[in-house]
């Protein structure tokens, strides 16, 4: 394979998109550093009720006593938590580029390849969208329809003010602030994120997405998402997008909590393509995320689907606590790493209730000098009669400087459990490529076909348009990586 060629191609994606166009003019910006005062400032800026401030402060005090974890299968430079600005007022419109012509042409090309509509391209690249267009955006239309059904879908800061009872009841109920270092930090300083509540018996008519949410132009650095599906409700939530996202924050420590009550179902899909640094591994986002869902009720279901194709370092384990009897947890993941990317991702399935089922399908693809690890846990508690798990973790290596690791951990405390785990690591078989080439496909097409087949089980769980974009995204990322 030609590594140089690959690196060149890679730079189309991960390469140089410019950040220069945000001027720091905000008068409403907190000084750098973190202290109780900053936590109080954030809370007062957000106009939060007292319970929220209390909670933030508790989290902050707890965080101060914690040590940054370093057990993952990678190393990263020290993070100076006093050098981060924890609050700045929402960015003014009009600071961005005035038209797509001002946006890096490489980025525009990428959009075109992915088939993203012009209006969305503008939004994604931070181009100020004119008011007329905005007012008729899909977002507003959906908003009205959702309200009719009683669905609450708004920024979490708004939810804290308007629905404090719901927030108080559920925030921290799945990921308590004591959970881990980054969750504690997030609990103390989160400023942005989504809140979603689906009332009993309602099937959310559209796929909810941060796209549609007005006032959510950017995902925050410490994003906090809380989704509650009440009895018998259903929601499908999409996060992120396939296009490379611009962001000036290096550390992202988000927390996502899902709660599914009796008979409820939550489907959470993520496509993550943050800036991954240049080909030498300089820069790029540290994506340290805590995502966890609780199947609190009987017959509830939580399904995670993720396509991880960006970030310099990805460190996340979307998990399910299967507490209700007959509840179901699913995890479908494709993690692709190229250049110098590091990914340590997987899931935890904690079986507590009777007849709980979980499925794990994880596909890792590593190329160039990247490292890709699957780390997961299946824990079947003594109370989980007839629990069932199936795990499959496949890794594909492209090139000889990358690595693929699998670290599953399986703890079984009930004999009625049935679990199967299998993992494979291999490269694209030369036979398959030869066969496809003999049928008239060129090498790139052949590889893309094989990769698609490899990831098919995951892609088919994505919402349709996401699925199409995800396929293209992988094709593009792997251009030039001949196995």
């Amino acid at each position, binding site marked *: 394979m030609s590594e140089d060629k690959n690196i060149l191609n890679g730079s189309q994606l991960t390469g140089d998109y410019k950040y220069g166009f945000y001027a720091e003019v905000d008068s409403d910006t907190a000084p750098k550093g973190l202290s109780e005062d900053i936590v109080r400032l954030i809370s007062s800026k957000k106009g939060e009720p007292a319970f929220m401030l209390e909670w933030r402060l508790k989290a902050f005090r707890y965080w101060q006593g914690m040590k940054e974890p370093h057990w993952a299968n990678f190393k990263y430079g020290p993070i100076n938590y006093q050098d981060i600005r924890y609050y700045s007022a929402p960015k003014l419109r009009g600071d961005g580029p005035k038209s797509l012509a001002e946006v890096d042409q490489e980025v525009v090309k990428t959009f075109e390849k992915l088939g993203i509509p012009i209006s969305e391209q503008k939004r994604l690249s931070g181009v100020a969208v004119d008011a007329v267009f905005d007012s008729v955006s899909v977002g507003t239309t959906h908003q009205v329809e959702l309200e009719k059904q009683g669905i609450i879908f708004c920024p979490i800061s708004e939810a804290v003010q308007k629905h404090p009872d719901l927030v108080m009841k559920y925030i921290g109920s799945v990921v308590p602030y004591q959970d881990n270092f980054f969750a504690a930090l997030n609990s103390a300083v989160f400023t942005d994120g989504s809140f979603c509540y689906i009332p009993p018996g309602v099937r959310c008519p559209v796929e909810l997405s941060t796209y549609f949410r007005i006032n959510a132009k950017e995902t925050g650095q410490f994003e906090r998402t809380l989704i509650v599906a009440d009895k018998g409700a259903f929601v499908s939530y999409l996060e992120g997008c396939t296009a490379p996202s611009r962001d000036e924050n290096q550390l992202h420590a988000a927390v996502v909590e899902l709660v599914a009550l009796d008979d409820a179902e939550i489907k959470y899909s993520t496509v993550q393509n943050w800036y991954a640094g240049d080909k030498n591994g300089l820069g790029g986002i540290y994506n340290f995320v805590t995502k966890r869902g609780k199947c609190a009720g009987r017959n509830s279901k939580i399904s995670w689907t993720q396509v991880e194709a960006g970030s310099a370092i990805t460190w996340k384990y979307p998990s399910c606590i299967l507490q209700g009897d007959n509840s179901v947890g699913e995890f479908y993941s494709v993690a692709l790493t190229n250049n110098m990317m590091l990914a340590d991702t997987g899931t935890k399935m904690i079986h507590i209730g009777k007849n709980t089922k979980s499925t794990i399908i994880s596909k890792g693809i590593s190329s160039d000098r990247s490292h890709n690890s699957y780390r997961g846990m299946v824990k079947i508690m003594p109370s989980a009669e007839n629990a069932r798990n199936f795990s499959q973790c496949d*890794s594909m*290596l*492209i*090139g*000889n*400087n*990358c*690595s*693929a*690791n*699998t*670290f*599953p*951990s*399986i*703890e*079984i*405390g*009930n*004999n*009625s*459990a*049935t*679990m*199967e*785990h*299998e*993992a*494979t*690591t*291999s*490269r694209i078989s030369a036979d398959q490529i030869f066969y496809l080439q003999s049928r008239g496909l060129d090498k790139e097409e052949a590889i893309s076909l094989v990769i698609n087949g490899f990831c098919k089980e995951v892609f088919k769980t994505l919402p349709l348009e996401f699925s199409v974009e995800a396929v293209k995204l992988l094709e593009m990322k792997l251009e030039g990586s001949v*196995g």
Partner: protein
Amino acid sequence: MEPLLSSTAFFSSLLGDDHKLQSGIPQWIRDYRRGDLDFLATARLPSFKDEEWLYTPLSPLWRQPLKLVDRLDGVLPDQFKKYFIEDAVNILIYNGRIAGDITLPDQSFTGVSIEKGDAAFKRLEASREYFSTLTPNDSPLFGRLNRVLFSDPLVISVGRAVTSPGLINIVNIITSPDAAVFPRIMIKVNEGASLNVVQSYLSIPDIAYLDLPVTDIVLDAGARLDYGERHLHSTAGTHIGAVRVWQKKDSTLRSCILSTGAGIFRSNVNVILEGQGASAEINGLHSLQGEAHADSHTYLEHVAPNTTSNQLYKCVLEGESHSVFHGRVFVHREAQQTNSYQLNKNLLLSRECRVDTKPQLEIKADDVKCTHGATIGQMDEDQLFYLQTRAVSRDEAVRMLVRGFMDDVLSRVQNPLVREALTQE
């Protein structure tokens, strides 16, 4: 912070008096021991925070006062006589000491040498590069404990191109309560040679002890070893054993470890495939009852290209038993065309048993085929029903299916002498 090893009853009973440790030991080993003692004096106890000991609590061990056995005493109880095999070279390690002289019976052992005492120390010195290595993935504590406390090494070697058709049968027996024994065995198979070795670990029932053997195996180019271990420990005993293997070009290892567990049972198997074309088959079978515990750690390191490893570990659990499997395969960047297979299967027969399994793959080469799998399940009701419709009682049907589950491992022991020795009774 975990307490220091030196603050435990374990430490003071075994390492309190270091003069005793040095008598009759060559200077070059004493040099290692000095470093080891320094290490042990400041070492912290491994705990569940330590990945290697996550599922195997060692706390009962540290509270236990143990004693080193200085002399051989007493006569071997009759019940162990049956473990000696006719036509084989039988070596008795009795409470950690090699008992009696070793005689090589007939011409089927020409070219084989088995040494103890000074001759064995000399052989160890010749293989210092292996002796000095500490097991990489294990907590270094136990490797050092053996190096500090062993006193009676056994070295088996086979000359170049000698194919030894016979069986070497090493029988480790512990009869002394609270004994701490540290067998140290080295097996060296020279170029093109082959050898069959079986080790049995036995004890009288219900006594507490610590059995901490280290078996080093070096397979030169084209060498072959058929190796088996059988463990029938006391329910109160502790066995923490290491088998460390270095394989050169085109060498072959076939290994099978059987056990019924122990109070604490830990088997570490480390294989380094450092020569092209080397292949290793590492199998294990545990049948656990009552409160038995069995923890198997394997570490297969593929260093050279074209190497193959195969692992099948099975466990049948009854009562409140607990099984742990931690299998790690590491493929270096240079080790292209590696094939590695690992499978761990557990059959749960009771409500209270527990299984923890952690298969791991770490791969840095791209042209490889590596898979691992783990399953945990119960008896298939359909199969039981089928057998019952054929007039087999339920109990008998369960026995038949368990036997079938276990036979999968036993049938992989290719060498008939090794298989017979392992499955006898």
